[in-house]
């Protein structure tokens, strides 16, 4: 923690960055984002297993994007979002300072157990950072391991009708607050498809048609891009298991393209690249 605070002070004091985004305590077993411009506020910084938020999402906010340089505290899993944003030309590498934190695990949102995403984490040690803070941590699984999710296997055993009823029930609870979109580091569209009304692609009402269209379109827009931070599911005020959708699409990307987003800044994402040997004809 001392090292983090010292680094933050140094960055702000020397005006190397205009803004620093980190975590502060929000009471016992809770942390929340901290956005600071003043070096004196750096003493509020914390880093612990309750630091769940993926702070990378703030880098997309228009007022923050307008700054000349911003430092962000990021775990390996969060850095995956930076990698995707860089590969999609949404960030300028020189305009961000990544304070990478080594991290064994964070807790589940209710603070009772290890977060499920940490069990198959491959980046306990930040893979892209300007400075790494914290002792190196042994990776539990190798980069090559193909992760299979039990809940998806379980879900896929359901019949079509059962699946339909499951999602019908779950998505009926969606109130269309767009917390999932606003918290997602990869939902950066200046104008989201749901905010278009001419034509109205997606029904904005919280009815079955609108809710299915919205949640499925969002999942599809994240296919091959989602970095599994789980923020959408964590913030959903209706407790909808959104990661079930997102992770199934991640597995598809793995199976079809041998692709996992957010690890290699040099790699070309499969859905935005064209290769001559591609099967599909439509693009030629």
């Amino acid at each position, binding site marked *: 923690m001392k090292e983090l605070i010292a680094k933050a002070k140094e960055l702000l004091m020397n005006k190397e960055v205009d803004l620093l985004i980190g975590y502060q305590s929000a*009471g016992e077993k809770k942390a929340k984002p901290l*956005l600071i411009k003043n070096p004196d506020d750096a003493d509020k910084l914390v880093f612990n297993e309750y630091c769940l938020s993926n702070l990378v*999402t703030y880098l997309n*906010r*228009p007022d923050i994007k307008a700054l000349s340089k911003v430092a962000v505290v990021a775990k390996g899993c969060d850095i995956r979002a930076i990698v995707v944003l860089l590969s999609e030309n949404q960030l300028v590498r020189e305009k961000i300072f990544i304070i990478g934190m080594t991290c064994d695990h964070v807790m589940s949102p209710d603070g009772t157990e290890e977060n499920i995403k940490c069990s198959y984490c491959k980046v306990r040690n930040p893979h892209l950072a300007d400075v790494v803070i914290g002792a190196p941590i042994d990776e539990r699984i190798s980069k090559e391991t193909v992760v299979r999710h039990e809940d998806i296997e379980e879900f896929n055993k359901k019949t079509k009708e059962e699946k339909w009823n499951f999602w019908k029930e779950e998505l009926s609870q969606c*109130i269309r607050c767009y917390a999932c979109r606003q918290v997602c580091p990869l939902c950066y569209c200046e104008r989201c498809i749901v905010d278009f009304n001419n034509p*109205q692609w997606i029904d904005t*009402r*919280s009815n079955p048609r609108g809710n299915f269209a919205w949640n499925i379109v969002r999942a599809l827009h994240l296919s091959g891009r989602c970095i599994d931070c789980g923020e959408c599911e964590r913030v959903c005020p*209706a407790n909808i298991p959104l990661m079930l959708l997102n992770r199934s699409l991640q597995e598809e990307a793995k199976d079809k393209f041998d692709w996992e987003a957010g690890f290699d800044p040099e790699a070309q994402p499969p859905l935005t690249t064209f290769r001559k040997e591609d099967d599909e004809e439509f693009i030629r």
Partner: protein
Amino acid sequence: MAEQYIDYDKAKEMLGNLTKNSEIEVFGPVKKGNDTFISKLNQNSELSFDYFITVNSIKEALLPRFEPILKYRINHNGVTLEDLPPVKPLVVFGGRPCDASSLPLMKKLFNWDFKDEFYLERLKKVIIITIACDEMDENCFCTSVGGSPRNETGSDVLLERVCSTGWKAKAISEKGKNFLKENSNFFNAKLTPEKGYPKIAEKDIPVVFDSKKIKTWIENNFESPLWEEFGANCLSCAACTFVCPTCHCFDITDDASMWKGVRTKNWDACTLPYFTKHASGHNPRSQSYQRYRQRISHKYSYYIDLFGQVSCTGCGRCSRVCEAGVNILDILKRIDKEATKGGK
């Protein structure tokens, strides 16, 4: 009349019974994951009564997420407007006093000059059965805005917990009295009040700010840099406003096929980036902190100018639901402190 009690089993039976009647809409507490929600009940709903506070508010019932306000048919001769089905009577069970006290507040707006009969009719036809609080958390502040854990405002029936599985019922309004009479076979549980209930008293929720001071500060400090600080973490979703019992902003949209259509009123929120954006691209509130300032100022200043009352019941739902860590109570306490310090 003798004292009336209802226990969990009878409450389930009563609500189950009410849902059989397709002529009324019944809302009650349903558990999902670790949380409880006020939901529209059907025969399969699994009711849960062991909750501290629901994530959403009873607004869900009174101001639906969306509702038709116009139906029309389009034909060669033009357009024909069609009648809408009448608003059904409702029973809303399981809100807290900080839910119910929002109703008279919202009524002022929907009754302001032009009468929004959709809300007002529902308000006339609803039975609000509120459960007094016997738990609180660090986000509760009802007493600072004139409420209390046992506040009767807006309720028709108030239930007070007397043991781990039941409540004592009290009729607050004429509607409530009739409801208790009509459903007396459910409000006849033989319960023995246990010691230790209710678990909290009004004094457990101390008054922590002066809303008058807050109003004055807001009036004089629109340009204060503190607003940027208050809204710094805000990511501009609508979670806080949608769970809020008094946030009432809505959008109006048409949905039509070639020959017929419906116009609906849908929840919308001042915190969302597109809320005030003009077709020209101009946006009077383009930044997230400006939108958050609007939310607080509307509740703690503008609403008072219009209707003489703070438009916040102190339920703390917005803080609980905000995963970016924007906490309304922290902000109000800070404003109170600033106002005291600055003397204006």
